[in-house]
């Protein structure tokens, strides 16, 4: 086949690929449809609450001048955890050349892709003037680079999105055609993606720690906390997904893969504990004003103690899974305890974002006010809307990718001719 023919056939086939990919992705059993229907419920409710927020303004959320970050941006930080952790699926395959994970690397990229998109959605809901988002596009608007930390985040998030979009679609498309990949193009892309994952998260941590006025964020351990939380929550999601995939699809996932991720969770949780101990010690021993937010979480302030139970719960549910997962039998309980622990770790770190990291950090305010955040129903519905859209996307992309990897979705001509000839 000549180069010309290849290009000609390549230009016709992407549409067929997209058609085959998504027609496979939307087919499934009752459980599968039930799951999608469940998510659609939140999408429909969320469309209405989105309309309310977009026409009324952020006043429909619980945010105030005292606590200026709402649930959206708190959830964004969590999506950055997962998006960064997705490289943990790629690294073993490409850097340690683990054969049992070579096939699965693309699933990691799909997780990264989806969670960057979910995160960007959260940022849009956080913005007061979404109609002016173009002001931050270099060339069109004014890009306050290199002063503003937010501009770094705009760069790294969009680059990460682009890298993963290209990597995922290229790999799946080539598999669909049954053609070998151009490794000179693909391998460097993967290595950039592997470096970029932690980068987006370090930059996200710097967005918080750049604020000198918020004492509990202005700490050098923040990127370490974020990356270790990424390792724990991201790996938990990966284990849950892989356990479901190997139960419900033909894709083979070895126990060794699950074991790798449960190890990552253990040591990530261990690191989180170390980070918390360092932070708590540094703040509490000297007991200066810098410790005020932390003391507010631990003790409350003059009876204002809404964060206290959340703080205690989060700390317990970080330490407990760590101790449990040190046990090999529990790490290998693929069908019983392990998925439960993974769900707990995932949800704990999700809840930790607003309840421990973000909201208490705003008390005391720079002028000494203490306040407790009360999320509104509209805000919660919008958060669930974004999550539901994200999980629908994750489900469909993963399902379609499994079809491609198992060979159920492939170019019909490739099948007939037995390999690539036109």
């Amino acid at each position, binding site marked *: 086949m000549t180069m010309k023919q290849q290009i000609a056939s390549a230009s016709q086939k992407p549409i067929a690929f997209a058609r085959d990919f998504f027609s496979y992705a939307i087919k499934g059993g009752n459980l599968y449809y039930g799951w999608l229907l469940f998510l659609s419920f939140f999408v429909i409710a969320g469309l209405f609450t989105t309309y309310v927020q977009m026409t*009324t303004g*952020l006043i429909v959320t619980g945010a105030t001048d005292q606590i*200026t970050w709402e649930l959206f941006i708190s959830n964004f930080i969590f999506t950055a955890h997962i998006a960064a952790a997705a490289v943990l699926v790629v690294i073993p395959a490409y850097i340690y050349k683990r054969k049992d994970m070579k096939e699965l690397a693309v699933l990691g990229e799909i997780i990264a892709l989806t969670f960057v998109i979910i995160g960007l959605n959260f940022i849009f809901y956080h*913005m007061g003037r979404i109609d002016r988002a173009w002001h931050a596009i270099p060339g069109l608007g004014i890009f306050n680079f290199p002063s*503003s930390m*937010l501009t770094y985040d705009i760069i790294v998030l969009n680059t990460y999105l682009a890298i993963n979009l290209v990597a995922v679609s290229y790999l799946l498309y080539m598999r669909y055609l049954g053609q070998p990949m151009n490794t000179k193009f693909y391998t460097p892309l993967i290595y950039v993606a592997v470096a970029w994952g932690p980068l987006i998260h370090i930059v996200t941590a710097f967005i918080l720690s750049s604020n000198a006025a918020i004492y509990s964020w202005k700490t050098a351990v923040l990127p370490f906390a974020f990356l270790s939380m990424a390792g724990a929550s991201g790996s938990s999601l990966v284990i849950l997904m892989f356990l479901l995939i190997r139960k419900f699809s033909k894709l083979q996932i070895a126990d060794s893969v699950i074991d790798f991720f449960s190890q990552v969770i253990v040591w990530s949780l261990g690191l989180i504990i170390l980070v918390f101990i360092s932070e708590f010690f540094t703040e509490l021993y000297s007991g200066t004003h810098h410790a005020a937010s932390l003391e507010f979480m631990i003790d409350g302030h003059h009876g204002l103690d809404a964060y206290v139970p959340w703080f205690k719960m989060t700390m317990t549910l970080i330490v407990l899974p760590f101790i449990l997962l040190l046990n090999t039998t529990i790490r290998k309980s693929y069908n019983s305890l392990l998925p439960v622990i993974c769900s707990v770790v995932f949800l704990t770190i999700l809840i930790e974002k607003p309840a421990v990291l973000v909201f208490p950090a705003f008390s005391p305010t*720079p*002028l000494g006010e203490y306040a407790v955040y009360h999320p509104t129903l509209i805000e919660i519905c919008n958060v669930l809307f974004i999550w539901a859209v994200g999980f629908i996307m994750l489900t469909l992309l993963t399902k379609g990718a499994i079809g491609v990897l198992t060979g159920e979705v492939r170019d019909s001509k490739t099948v007939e001719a037995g390999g690539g000839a036109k």
Partner: protein
Amino acid sequence: MSEDKREMVDEQDDGQVKESRRDFLKKMGVAAAATAAAPAATAKAVSIAEALQGHFELMSDEQKQKAIARLEERYSEQFSKQTTVANTPAPDGVLFGYALNISKCIGCRRCVEACVRENNQSRDPAIQWIRVLRMEKGNVTFDAKDLNAGKPSSSSLGDHGIQSGGHAGKPVGISGYTDHYYEPEQVPEDNAFYFPVQCQQCEKPACVKACPVRATYRDPNGIVVIDYNWCIGCRMCQLACPYWARRFNWGEPVLPSEEMNPKTHYLGNRPRPRGVMEKCTFCLQRVRDGRYPACVEACPVGARKFGNLLDPESEVRKVLATKQVFRFKEEFNTDPKFFYYMD
């Protein structure tokens, strides 16, 4: 207006000022509710040209004129009164500075009220750029029963000579004993002193550094301004500010037509849209015309001084030269041009 003021503050023989801020707030609330229903104050749709306009500082003179004409037309219609949006340039050779005498401040908050009226802040939700903190005098207790009331408390394991009790002051907290919402019958109170805080117009503003689109920037006179048509509402500046000086328009601002000040400036007190940041500009619309900020004029005890820091003869410079002066939160290294002083 002048009648209003007389109602609000009754000067008494002993020099004390009787405050009826509750009445003032009540009136404001009623006015806001009344006009929320009136069609005159509903926001007019923004034209496509306005939605697509660029950053104010980068516009040509012609573009600026058009942008201002658009705004004047929209505001005049919305508030049913002829509104001007000035573009008075920054005067040369001027660096504005502010000095506030905390030993004089009586906590009456007339500055807050004057600021709200002058600068067209939203009445509902209420936005105020000046926050007056009330602090109680004598924050130290020598009472025996309070000795162990503080933190860290004495331990059942023994004090080992390092534990302190309540006698060393009340438990720790960042100005944790400031009252933002005091409502006394009369000010000043015998047992309190007051500390007003507003934008400190820093020479190294953390907010300007944080803005991703340069919607907030320092003008040639050292005032940190905001282009309300360029702000994207990300609130990074609000996080960065160590003085809690910035306020966000969480909802559509409600400004009753009859209370709206029609003499505005593009970078100053023109009515703001929903979803953007705002803050004190030293009354840019006034000071660029050589007038005093509204809070300076409103202060009944002369605690507020304003002037040109580059002019050695200015009132502010004289305060800096002769009084005990400090800047709030110097550790943040933002170099405010807002000074506090004592007699």
